[in-house]
């Protein structure tokens, strides 16, 4: 038997940054909940097929049941309900802190990291 796969959560990655905009909307991804900022960054960079990796930060939009999260970038609803994934925090801890199970699908906005790369590397 191969090693037990870890738990995953369905994530839709979106952005408002024109320079990071994909050609077509990114597909939903089943992401291991153990991942932190760096892991998510690697996934998005791979999806975007970037030449040199762009360091990213993540804003998780708090999903509610019955809301597929498709319209999360509507101006009114955007920033108010999204939370920055803290350095060192995994998706698992985000879910636990917010009383969510991995049954929800998360909409995550990616932004260029505002922190210097050397500092980020320590997470």
């Amino acid at each position, binding site marked *: 038997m191969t090693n037990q796969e870890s738990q995953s959560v369905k994530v839709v990655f979106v952005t408002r940054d024109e320079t990071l905009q994909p050609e077509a909307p990114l597909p939903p991804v089943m992401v291991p909940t153990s991942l932190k900022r760096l892991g998510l960054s690697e996934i998005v960079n791979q999806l975007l097929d970037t030449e040199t990796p762009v360091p990213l930060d993540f804003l998780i939009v708090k999903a509610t049941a019955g809301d597929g999260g498709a319209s999360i970038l509507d101006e009114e609803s955007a920033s108010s309900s999204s939370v920055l994934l803290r350095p060192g925090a995994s998706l698992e801890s985000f879910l636990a802190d917010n009383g969510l199970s991995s*049954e929800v699908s998360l909409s995550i906005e990616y932004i260029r990291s505002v922190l210097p790369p050397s500092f980020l590397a320590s997470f």
Partner: protein
Amino acid sequence: EEDIEDLSIDESAMSLSESRDKWKTYQSSVADLATTLCEQLRLILEPTLATKMRGDFKTGKRLNMKRIIPYIASSFKKDKIWMRRTKPSKRQYQIMISVDDSKSMNESPQCVELAFQSIALISKALTQLESGQLAVMKFGQDAQLVHPFEKTFSDESGGELVSKFSFAQDQTNVQKLVQNSIDIFQQQKLGGAELWQLQIIISDGICENHEVLRQLVRHARELKIMLVFVVIDALAAASGSSSITDIKQAKYISQDDGQMVLKMEKYLDTFPFEFYVIVRDIKELPSVLSSVLRQFYSEVAEMS
């Protein structure tokens, strides 16, 4: 015993009268489709009318050559050496419909609706067939029988079972579902007769532990329990913009040097169920379901 457990009040579940009304709506929306599915199932599940020469009889029409030598060797005591035309006996079958009660199903109302329509459609087609038994199971964190094989499935049962779903469970434990169902199916088999057992799983298709599941599915198949997975394509049903076929799975594969490398593959590429169909509209269900069943039973026929 299940009934007692189900009396517990679940806030998110509907009232019984409300669920009866819903069930009626689902049933009438699939009435024509059920007739179509019933006809197709009849062709697949019922034995062919063609009779075969077979058997070991004391008198008959044609000699069974395999019996001649033992006949002589036994000083003509083993004298059942004749074959007759026999009609195949009617096949007994049991079908279990298992429906995903987890929270992810609630992401779009279309998904829940499609799930109930599927139960209505399949149960109606089977009651029209009139020769099998039907059970219904719900699963999420746990797997729980909501309608046992022993009970006749009626309109009343339909209303009752709708009320037992909440689509609020915090896990989708398909592994537990398959394990429990195999146990239930095995208990049913004790009768000994040739029994065809089929499980139809209705779910949004998002589940964990594909590798473990794949082994369980293989085990079920060895026990001649067929598993068909009906994937309700919730994303496509809701928005039309994306589909379960687009979903990727992020995975870490360990290299020879011990390094873990990120690999993105299509979620469905590792889907552990060999026989699955993707449904976006209830109208598609009769034809996709019967074609996958036909494929399975032709493989079973080759095996035995």
